[in-house]
């Protein structure tokens, strides 16, 4: 066999580097993040300090948890647009019920709509096969409606942010945001769940090929219902964290986080078509978006220009990331 001529050439350094990164997609993503932070530092020398890092983490955490909901649902080929409404509902109910109720009771009441909406989403998607986008959009409309009706019943009683949420939302321990006490376990749990549990496996399998999963004995509706309930629960908890951070209960509190949460998951390498992705990338994706928002806030330019820049940077980051990790 004289096939030396067609044997692949000795691998160049650049190619090896590329392959290295392709095997560890998190690294290029983190590099992109560092580049953004560096740009920020150049534009405003001194901004990247301990306090800034803590603030960035505070805002990235709720986004990252909601993006976790998107990651999990996107793995099955779905999406959860109701997370914004669910988070808002939990936050609003918590802030208003705490006035007259025991904290534990208020917490349960706040989580109730989350579970309910998640369950309805799950049944709709899993049993009735409604497209997740429509299903979650529908339940989020319905949820918003109920929240507004509810809101009128509590105008008189006012609202209050419980101290422990305050502590969680804005407090620092040795310079680290307390929100990390919530986030680190949640993140570890999600990563562990996706990689090392049967349920995580099923999310990927169902999103990749539902029929194959079925033939392996997987009951689609069980997986999907559990998934959407879990997603809603996480969203509800995020709402509580977020109200502790923002400290102003409003009826649209967490809505602005919905599109960015989808974007964070996608930037982090999760495919919206299902079967592909992971949570660690999503976390970096959320950080990238948060830093980008800061970057644009401090830029002195017309709002229109800012948005144009934001759009192009998101596109560029995603494209660059794809280029780096794809090994063809």
């Amino acid at each position: 066999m004289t096939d030396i001529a067609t044997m692949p050439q000795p691998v160049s350094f650049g190619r090896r580097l590329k392959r290295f990164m392709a095997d560890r997609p998190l690294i290029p993503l983190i590099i992109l993040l560092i580049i953004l932070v560096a740009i920020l530092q150049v534009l405003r020398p001194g901004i990247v300090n301990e306090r800034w890092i803590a603030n960035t983490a505070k805002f990235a955490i709720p986004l990252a948890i909601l993006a976790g909901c998107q990651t999990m649902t996107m793995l099955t080929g779905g999406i959860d647009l109701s997370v914004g409404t669910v988070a808002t509902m939990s936050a609003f109910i918590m802030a208003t019920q705490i006035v007259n109720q025991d904290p534990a009771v208020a917490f349960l009441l706040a989580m109730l709509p989350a579970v309910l909406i998640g369950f309805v989403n799950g049944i709709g998607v899993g049993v009735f096969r409604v497209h997740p986008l429509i299903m979650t959009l529908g339940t989020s409309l319905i949820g918003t409606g109920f929240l507004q009706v509810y809101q009128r019943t509590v105008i008189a009683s006012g609202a209050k942010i419980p101290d422990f949420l305050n502590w969680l939302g804005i407090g620092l321990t040795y310079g680290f945001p307390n929100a990390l006490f919530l986030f680190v376990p949640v993140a570890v749990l999600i990563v562990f769940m996706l990689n090392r549990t049967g349920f995580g496996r099923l999310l990927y399998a169902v999103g990749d090929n539902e029929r194959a999963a079925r033939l392996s004995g997987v009951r689609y509706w069980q997986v999907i219902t559990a998934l959407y309930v879990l997603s809603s629960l996480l969203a509800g908890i995020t709402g509580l964290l977020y109200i502790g951070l923002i400290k102003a209960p409003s009826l649209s509190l967490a809505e602005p986080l919905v599109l960015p949460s989808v974007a964070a998951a996608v930037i982090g390498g999760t495919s919206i078509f299902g079967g592909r992705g992971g949570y660690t990338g999503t976390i970096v994706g959320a950080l990238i978006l948060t830093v980008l928002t800061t970057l644009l806030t401090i830029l002195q330019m017309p709002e229109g220009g800012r948005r144009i820049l934001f759009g192009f940077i998101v596109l560029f980051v995603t494209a660059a990331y794809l280029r780096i990790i794809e090994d063809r």
Partner: protein
Amino acid sequence: MTTNPLPQSPLLDATGVAKNYGAVAALRNASLSVLPGEVHALMGANGAGKSTLVKILTGAIKADAGRILIRGQQLDVRTPAAARRAGLLPVYQEPSLIPDLDVLSNLRLTGTPVEPFRAWVRELGIPDLDIRETARHVPLAILRVLDLARALAVEPDVLLLDEMTAALPANLAEKVLEVVRRQGDAGRSVIFISHRFVEISALCDRATVLRDGATVGVVDIEPGIEERIVEMMLGTRIEKTRVAARAANEGAVAGDGRPRLSVRNLQLGTKLNDVSFDLANGEVAGVFALEGQGQDELFAALAGSIRPTGGSIDVDGAPVKFSHPSDAIQAGIAYVPGDRAEALAMQRSVRENIALPFSAAPRKWGPIRMRREQVVVSGAIGRLQIDTRAQGEVQRLSGGNQQKVTIARWIAANARTILCFDPTRGIDVGTKQEIYKLLRELAGQGKSVLFYTSEMEEVQRVCDRVIVIFGGRVVDTFPVEDADEAALMRAAYGLPRGARADVGILAEVKPGSSAEAAS
């Protein structure tokens, strides 16, 4: 470096073709030279690179290296459309009709003339095609035939058929072979990929053999050449053991003699009519049928995929009702579909695919015991000799290796009964032997196998008993000793037992001349 345009200069001449997928070299040094008017076999074990070569020749993927001459000229074939213009038309291993368009629109999309297409479809043995049917609703076998007819209709100079017959029942396969041979007679060339030696001997003039991505030889097809081809294909991996079907009455039926699976008067719409049979422990029962006789539905019903409209199924003597495949799995019945796309999560790893059933039930949703899983999975991989060089994603495995994963899953899960629907579809000779052996071993362990196949050879090779289905009914059941090809064929056509097959291209192949019979 110009090739001398002799009268018999090749129509298509590829040399030094290489293609890498990351670390996997799909092709290293492949060459192929096809003369005008010849039917040229392209052979090789699973994963040898046959499909990859076809894709490169037809512009579906780009080669990393190599030179391709068409009629002595170096054309730049970058897209399937360009290949078409150059007169190269493929039928790929996977159906390529657009699933959501009807057949007519599919023709318009590719600019295929309709009347010739219709004529070819009739010729290929489908008299009553509804051309407005959406491709998605056309059964796989018919879809393959339509793919072929579409290619034939534009009268290509070189037709490339990648395992065209693998998914076809015997009657359709035979038609295809006839048509392909006539292509050669008409002066057009055909590149023909198949793992079935009968077809190769009946059809081809020469064969190019690939091993591990490189061309290892070109031979003329003549009686007795099969041995040599197998040697070239498999290199050192030559298996010469003949898997003998168990002699009648050999080995006692395990346990109390109750059948493992007992089907009575099974009814399913118009597709299944009063089907009854038993499957014993430690038995491999073959199901033989022409295309569309209800075998798909039978397997689906036993697997819990669809609910029968009447009749009963007993497992170990107890009646069962399956409303979901998980019920069947619970009862120890596993189903291996013929279409691997139906069975595999293509973007997931080999390991995850094999371990998938372990996590199915909610009580198994918790943490996975990775080490235990690793042991079980690698055991199954070893048993089926899956080539796991590209195991990160199943879709990167070659077609045959994907097929093996679908079986390995149930070996790992230790299922008591396996329903195999054409499991050797598109599997190379070496591996086929492995699978036969495996099925026999399973039976030896007291497991039971229901085995549908589109190849008569296999029935004789592995089964203890054959159940022949025609028109949704069991028309005959006989022990393997009586199951010669003639008997099978006649039964499959619903004819009484004991007549002879004397029609069709395969009838001309002398029994015993195939490599498989010799190996």
